[in-house]
């Protein structure tokens, strides 16, 4: 046994024959514990969330957004006024003021809900109008981003995955749409759709949404998906070179499944970041269109149209301009900061 033992010249292997049993001692509990796996293994998502939680700006934005959403959801249940309810005799009230009639009611012991932001020139409670405006803006932003996400993702992944001539043709189409001046076409299409859709949707559920809202979504669906499609195509071109995609193809996975299960999850971070930053830009577009009277139809308020209406009486009632303007800035600021935070937390290129 002893003579058979051959130690490789640079091996760290210990020649046990030199020791006897007494030379060893048992490991203490403390030493044993060193072998334990202390940290939990993290996933990409957990790692990103951990970094996001360390970012005070992003967490503050999340808090503000949650508060805003709570107000938007529950304020209409608490405040007894509707967004187009005209309270008689209480036009043009300053915040927290009451009309003479309401003062009489209060004197008679009735409960009158205060007009937190005052009322507008028709006597509608301004707070609830701003709340509904924020509701419209946020939902337009989110829905438009989802539309952009779906179209861009499908188009981009097909183009990137198939490659070759299909990719070439699909990308030429994207090039042309990309070079169109988007804002101008949005204005143009909104003008046209406003006039043409009005008869087409009369009497359907869609009529409730309003023509302008629908044309807004159509316009987003037609024009805004191109940058998303480009981005996802680029991601897929690199990801599809990986061996696991080849392996999936070898065992006969269908194209759609390969894209869905093996490729898209790997560009998830880019998709999340871009969608998060798409929401504020959609809100911007919506408020811009509402401001030039192409947005949601009256009497439904939107932050843009409220600001536009408030311009006329700006000198006497500046708060009517400030409330919607500040709300829109707050929403967009929080979303932008959250998007930046997500990018810092989830973009692998920046974190290394």
């Amino acid at each position, binding site marked *: 046994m002893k003579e058979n033992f051959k130690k490789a010249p640079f091996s760290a292997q210990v020649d046990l024959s030199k020791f006897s049993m007494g030379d060893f001692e048992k490991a203490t509990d403390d030493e044993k514990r060193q072998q334990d796996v202390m940290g939990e293994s993290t996933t990409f998502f957990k790692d990103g969330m951990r970094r996001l939680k360390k970012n005070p700006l992003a967490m503050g934005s999340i808090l503000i957004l949650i508060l805003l959403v709570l107000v938007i959801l529950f304020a209409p249940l608490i405040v007894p006024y509707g967004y187009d309810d005209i309270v008689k005799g209480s036009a043009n009230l300053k915040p927290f003021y009451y009309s003479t009639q309401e003062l009489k009611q209060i004197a008679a012991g009735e409960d009158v809900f205060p007009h937190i932001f005052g009322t507008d020139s028709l006597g509608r409670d301004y707070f609830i109008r701003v709340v509904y405006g924020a509701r419209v803006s946020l939902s337009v932003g989110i829905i438009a981003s989802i539309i952009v996400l779906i179209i861009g993702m499908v188009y981009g992944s097909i183009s990137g995955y198939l490659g070759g001539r299909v990719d070439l043709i699909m990308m030429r189409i994207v090039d042309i749409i990309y070079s169109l001046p988007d804002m101008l076409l949005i204005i143009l299409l909104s003008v046209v759709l406003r006039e043409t859709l009005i008869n087409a949707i009369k009497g359907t559920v869609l009529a409730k949404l309003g023509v302008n809202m629908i044309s807004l979504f159509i316009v987003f669906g037609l024009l805004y998906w191109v940058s998303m499609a480009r981005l996802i195509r680029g991601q897929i071109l690199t990801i599809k070179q990986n061996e696991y995609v080849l392996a999936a193809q070898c065992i006969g996975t269908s194209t759609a499944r390969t894209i869905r299960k093996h490729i898209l999850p790997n560009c998830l971070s880019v998709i999340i970041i871009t969608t998060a930053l798409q929401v504020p830009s959609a809100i911007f577009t919506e408020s811009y269109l509402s401001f030039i009277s192409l947005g949601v139809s009256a009497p439904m308020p939107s932050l843009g149209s409220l600001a536009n209406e408030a311009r006329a009486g700006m000198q006497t009632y500046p708060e009517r*301009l400030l409330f919607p303007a500040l709300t829109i800035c707050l929403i967009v600021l929080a979303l932008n900061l959250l998007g930046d935070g997500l990018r810092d937390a989830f973009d692998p290129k920046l974190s290394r």
Partner: protein
Amino acid sequence: MTKYVVKRVLLALVTVVVISLITFFAMNAIPGGPFNKEKATSPTVQAQLEARYNLDKPLTTQYVLYMKNLVKGDFGVSLKNGREISDIIGESFPISGKLGILASLIAIFTGIVLGSTAALMRNKWPDRLIIFFITIITSMPSFVIATLFLYFFCMKLGWFPAFSAGENMTVLPVIALSMSPMAYITRLTKTSMLDALGQDYIRTAKAKGVSGLKVIFVHGLRNALIPVITYVGPMVAGILTGSMVVESIFNIGGLGSKFVMAITNRDYTLIMATTIFLAVIMVLANLITDIVYKMVDPRIKLD
């Protein structure tokens, strides 16, 4: 290079044709629109209109004729007041153009100064202050900036007259217009400046003993400005769309406010002509940007 230029020019032409097609046929789809017979007009006016726009001919022929007239500078007449649209554009575009050019110059200059300051003082208080303001500005839509300006500077402080199109009225609109492009250029300059300052040639220049200022301006800034050039095209588009609301708010009779008024008045011929006119400017700006970018930096390979 020639091949690249030809390719870009062709793409620009295709874009213009696509825009004009969309505009023309979309406008024709409007019931009661400019070229529609459902509109209640007197027979004589109707006949004149039909003769003027060749309405008796098929739609494709109408399009070709419309485009031919456009190229000749004949934009048709406004539906609202019957004025020649080329006159309207001719008198209002110089106003918008002046505002736009001034706003671009301010945006580019301030943006580069602020951006490089932020990059050079990275993570110190000037950097934080600049980035703080930039973040706030990027979350304000152009109409909010303009109305707040009008409220504070004209009504509260009284520095400028509120509702007159006097001489002073260029200052506020120009600043309001330049805000968001300025914010964007600042960000762009900061990132590209940081990128440039981290390059090897900067270290080489410093190692050779080139003075600090020369390194920053000659070696750093010159290379950092290349990405800023790419933003010029989008900036022109942004300023043109921004000028629509800014001009309406400050009550300036430029092309932007005329366009917004045309939208409210449903003056379809004016909307159509202005859309095509503005689109051509934007496409041209993009074309020039692409070509200049390629000329400035030969390393760039855009297909």
